[in-house]
């Protein structure tokens, strides 16, 4: 076991360096960032365009006289500043809507943090104008502070399931993205005719493990880069509290996300490596990998079908099948706080992974170095289960 691990690390180290120091990896890194960059640019452009649009209405809950003064002041400012001035509507605030209450001398603005951030200035201007109008001819009023209070409505299951769905998609996207890299890596190995050298020196399991570890390392490097960019993007563009907290809590949710990603990567990676071992060229590998990619997409669709209802039969089945389990369990973590189902799911995934690596390595071994005529399918499977 120690020898296998040692050998796997030697192979992983070489593969990791070769992968990360390649131009392809730079493209791999930039690839997923492009949608984010385009999104950010589009968002900024949209913000620019939105300068001319009216903002969401603010509920006005002040006493009638004060409210009338505020409405008048707003109308005056609207002539001059136009769409910079928010709409004011006299009614009770809807959930998540900002509300201007109190009195003209002791105003109070309640609402979501981002709304307070955006509206504080214009509302202050309206209030100052209203008080100035009221004191017409008298002493100009001293400015008063606008009391604000951030109100974050508690996330409901629907909001949380959105978090789960996003997490599922990220898992799918990442594993889908690297699958082709795994296959092409192995094909390159065969094309370089290095595989026989490796097979004579180390156990086949170690080659398998090494390649998986290397690609996992390369992908985690990518994840670190992407996560950093995403964090910067969220900090810059997403209002605080706009993303609902998962039921299991952010730290555990993110930790589980990482572990599930690793398991998902390894489980699918074994399949892709097994396929890669059968291919003799990049084109053949692509052809062979296509059904797997399709299967991966189907499994994702299946697992995300009941993301909002983790206790329904389909979601439970998806949670049990190791290749869909990480998707289903991430959705579960978003909605339900219990930790033990995750430990059970991870144990099942781990055991399946060990078996898959063993079988994959055997399939790899029976095909990758064979001379003579190509193997017939029945013999492949017979050999796979021999011993």
């Amino acid at each position, binding site marked *: 076991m120690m*020898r296998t691990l*040692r*050998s796997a690390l*030697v*192979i992983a180290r*070489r593969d990791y360096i*070769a992968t990360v120091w*390649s131009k392809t990896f730079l493209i791999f890194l930039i690839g997923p960032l492009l949608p984010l960059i385009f999104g950010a640019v589009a968002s900024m452009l949209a913000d620019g365009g939105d300068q001319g649009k009216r903002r969401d209405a603010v509920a006005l809950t002040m006493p009638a006289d004060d409210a009338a003064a505020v409405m008048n002041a707003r109308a005056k400012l609207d002539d001059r500043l136009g769409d910079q001035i928010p709409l004011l509507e006299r009614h009770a605030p809807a959930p998540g809507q900002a509300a201007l209450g109190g009195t003209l001398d002791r105003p109070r603005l309640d609402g979501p943090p981002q709304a307070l951030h955006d509206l504080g200035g214009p509302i202050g201007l309206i209030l100052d104008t209203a008080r100035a109008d009221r004191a017409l001819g008298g002493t100009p009023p001293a400015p008063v502070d606008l009391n604000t209070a951030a109100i974050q409505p508690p996330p409901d299951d629907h909001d949380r399931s959105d978090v789960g769905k996003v997490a599922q998609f990220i898992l799918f996207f990442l594993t889908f993205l690297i699958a082709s890299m795994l296959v092409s890596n192995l094909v390159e190995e065969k094309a*370089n*005719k*290095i*595989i*026989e*050298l*490796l*097979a*004579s*020196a*180390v*156990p086949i399991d170690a080659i398998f493990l090494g390649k998986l570890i290397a690609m996992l390392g390369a992908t985690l490097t990518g994840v670190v880069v992407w996560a950093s960019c995403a964090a910067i993007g969220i900090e810059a563009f997403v209002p605080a509290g706009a993303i609902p907290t998962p039921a299991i809590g952010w730290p555990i949710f993110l930790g589980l996300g990482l572990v599930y990603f690793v398991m998902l990567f390894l489980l699918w990676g074994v399949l892709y490596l097994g396929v890669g071992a059968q291919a003799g060229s990049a084109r053949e590998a692509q052809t062979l990998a296509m059904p797997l990619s399709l299967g991966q997409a189907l499994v994702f669709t299946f697992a995300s079908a009941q993301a909002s209802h983790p206790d329904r039969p389909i979601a439970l089945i998806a949670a049990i099948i190791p290749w869909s389990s990480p998707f289903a369990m991430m959705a579960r973590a978003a909605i339900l706080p219990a930790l033990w189902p995750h430990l059970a799911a991870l144990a099942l995934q781990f055991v399946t992974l060990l078996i898959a690596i063993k079988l994959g390595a055997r399939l790899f*071994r029976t095909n990758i*170095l*064979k*001379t*003579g*005529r*190509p*193997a*017939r399918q029945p*013999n492949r499977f017979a050999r796979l289960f021999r011993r």
Partner: protein
Amino acid sequence: MSEALAVEAHGITKHFDGATAVDGVDLAVPSGSIYGILGPNGAGKTTTLRMLLGIIDPDSGERRLLGAASPLEVADRVGYLPEERGLYSGMNPRDAIAFMGALRGLPLKEGKARATKLLAEHDLPADRPIRTLSKGMAQLVQLLGTIVHKPGLIVLDEPFSGLDAINQERLEALIRDQAKSGATILFSTHVIAHAERLCERIAVIARGKIRFEGTPEEARTRFPSRVRLATRHAGDWEKALPADAKCESGLWRFRLPEDGIEPLLKAVIEADAGIETLAIEPPSLHEAFVAIVGDAGERP
């Protein structure tokens, strides 16, 4: 099984989809020797070596490498140069050699130090990407990677193929050096001259079976000497020539008859044919090889 043998095989057999690639091969390679496996293309040499090294398992039979039943147990003491040469084209020679050593348990740092020394000794660049090297240089780099961890057993599959005459000589010298330092060398080839110059023992394999095992001298003496005879005059004495005699440009060639050459010589002398050339030569290893493989019904 004896530990005086670096490699042992008893009846190892391998089938590929009904075709028998290797059929009951027995081998005994003494420790510290240079041993050649000779055979025509497709004879089963590579499959035999792969089974001995544990790259593939035999369907039946037993093998033992450096005393171990499982070849991977002693992989750190074995060096292997496959027939299909392969190196990572983006790597430089030093890293490639160190990597090959690391696969066999040599610490990477030590591997790099040894690689630098070996490359300097062979006038090879250490830092250029392998894709910029000539084929011969790349092959030499791979060979250095095969020996960087100082293995006790070096297995080379067709090591001379693709090398020019100068590099072949360098490789022969390197093999001799390794043998002098105590390593056992087992190599396969279909070029008999290398085996003749290097090997203490050989095995000739054809159609998956060992057809001969012994020293090159034993292979040669297993077959009768060849006779070359040229005379000034033809005549009735030619009736005394053996049945296999063939004449090309007045020169007769035939195997030395079992009852000797004296009856023929008597006929030539009595006919006063005038002997111009008479030579009795033991067969070369190449001729012995051709004869052995030909007897097996295979074209070398």
